């Protein structure tokens, strides 16, 4: 068994490397036939990336964007989580609020961004608000669905041991909901991260989104590519270095 998994892991690594090299080669070939302002080549983007990382605003921009995303996400989790539990355990409340959730879900993030500019102007609150409005319904929906999967038999078991409603919430509801919350949070963080850039392009005077618009205005396409590469690498690190290990630790009780 361990041999088999090691074998499949090496194959996976080999496949990924091949894919990466092939994509890089295609990019390079395409860039030979295009003007630089349309498609800069890999070397040019690499140089731009190095220059970007040495610029004084690189880390502050990265930091402020991350901060806005995390703030909006945490707010979304703090509001969406408990609200999802309430809706999942209370049928009347669920029936009352379901249409509202559909409305919120159909409004595009771009519309929230426009509203945010009207209400908050050029400020951190604009981006945080847009991330919140995008992430919150996702977390809420997942927690809600999770709360509906709570096994009545476990609740009955807890009651047979004379557990209080608070204990039943902590020992039966929360562990059941946690995987659903995690799935929702992951989705929400990804969406929040992407819409934060949209919000920053129109409602901010710093951050990654703002720099992207600046680069676009000046037709510095290599800069846009350099930021894109940075973002992709950042998300991959977050996925592999934080989310996967946390998930493995939290859900080690599950069957593979």
């Amino acid at each position, binding site marked *: 068994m361990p041999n088999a998994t090691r074998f499949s892991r090496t194959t996976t690594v080999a496949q990924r490397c091949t894919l990466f090299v092939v994509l890089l080669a295609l990019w390079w070939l395409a860039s030979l036939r295009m003007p630089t302002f349309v498609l800069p080549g890999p070397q040019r983007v690499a140089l731009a990336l190095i220059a970007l990382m040495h610029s004084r605003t690189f880390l502050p921009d990265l930091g402020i964007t991350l901060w806005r995303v995390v703030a909006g996400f945490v707010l979304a989790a703090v509001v969406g989580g408990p609200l999802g539990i309430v809706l999942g355990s209370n049928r009347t409340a669920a029936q009352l609020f379901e249409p509202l959730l559909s409305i919120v879900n159909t409004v595009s993030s771009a519309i929230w961004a426009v509203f945010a500019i009207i209400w908050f102007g050029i400020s951190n609150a604009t981006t945080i608000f847009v991330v919140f409005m995008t992430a919150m319904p996702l977390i809420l929906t997942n927690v809600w669905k999770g709360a509906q999967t709570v096994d009545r038999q476990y609740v009955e*078991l807890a009651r047979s041991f004379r557990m209080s409603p608070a204990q039943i919430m902590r020992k039966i509801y929360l562990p059941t909901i946690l995987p659903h919350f995690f799935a929702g949070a992951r989705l929400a963080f990804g969406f929040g991260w992407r819409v934060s850039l949209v919000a920053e392009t129109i409602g901010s005077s710093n951050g990654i989104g703002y720099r992207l618009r600046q680069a676009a205005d000046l037709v510095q396409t290599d800069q846009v590519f350099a930021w894109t590469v940075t973002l992709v690498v950042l998300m991959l690190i977050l996925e592999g270095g934080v989310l996967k290990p946390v998930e493995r630790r939290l859900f*080690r009780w599950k*069957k593979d």
Partner: protein
Amino acid sequence: MSAPAIPPHASAIPLHAPAVSLHAPAISLDGVSKRFGDLQVLSDIRFDVADGESVALLGTSGCGKSTLLNIIAGLLGPDAGVLSINGQPANGGQHPSLSYMFQEDRLLPWRTARANAEFGLEAAHPVLPAHERHALADTVLQMVGLDGFGHVYPHQLSGGMRSRVALARSLVTAPRILLMDEPFSKLDPQTRSQMHDELLRIRSLRQVSVLFVTHDVEEAIVLADRVIVLAPRPGRVREIVTVDLPHPRKATEPAVAEAIRQLRLLI
């Protein structure tokens, strides 16, 4: 076999008269009735379970066995009649000296075997410190033969082992009364008979009264001191049969086989 007409379900009680007179019965039901809407589920149920006694509730499906057990466990309220636990009227709520073992093992999949066994201790007032809970859980796991399996998750255990963890969880609070709702019905016959031996062994270690629901006549004869045969629609006591055979009772022994046959004729 003398006196005037005794109601049939009372006929066995005098046999246990000494035990009943020394201690208050562990469980006493007097005229318990229950209906769900228009459906009369239980009608005028009366019997006692003496301290330390093992009693089977036997009947076909739909005779209200599980409902009756839920009433005794305090998960349901009776519409009429009186339920007493250890001589005290029990009115609503679950009694601390009672433990309930369900038909399904109901192990929490996110908890290890030991954490599952500890579950019942976590509602204790005052709060038990973690190391005491661990120690008690380890003791009961050892008692059910799962020494060294404390760190294992339920999905890694076989059906029989899961059943043992569920039994450990029921015993960890040191209950005086153990209620069981067809607890071994989902196990294969061999594992089930192992669990029967286990239960009998544990019952002799810990002075615990057992009341269990079953539709398996053999299980009733092997485990019970008395068998309460229920009749369906509405659920009522048809007959109370005393099983006076030495342990261990193997279904292959003639006396045991005969008792099983006799009981089967009653239902």
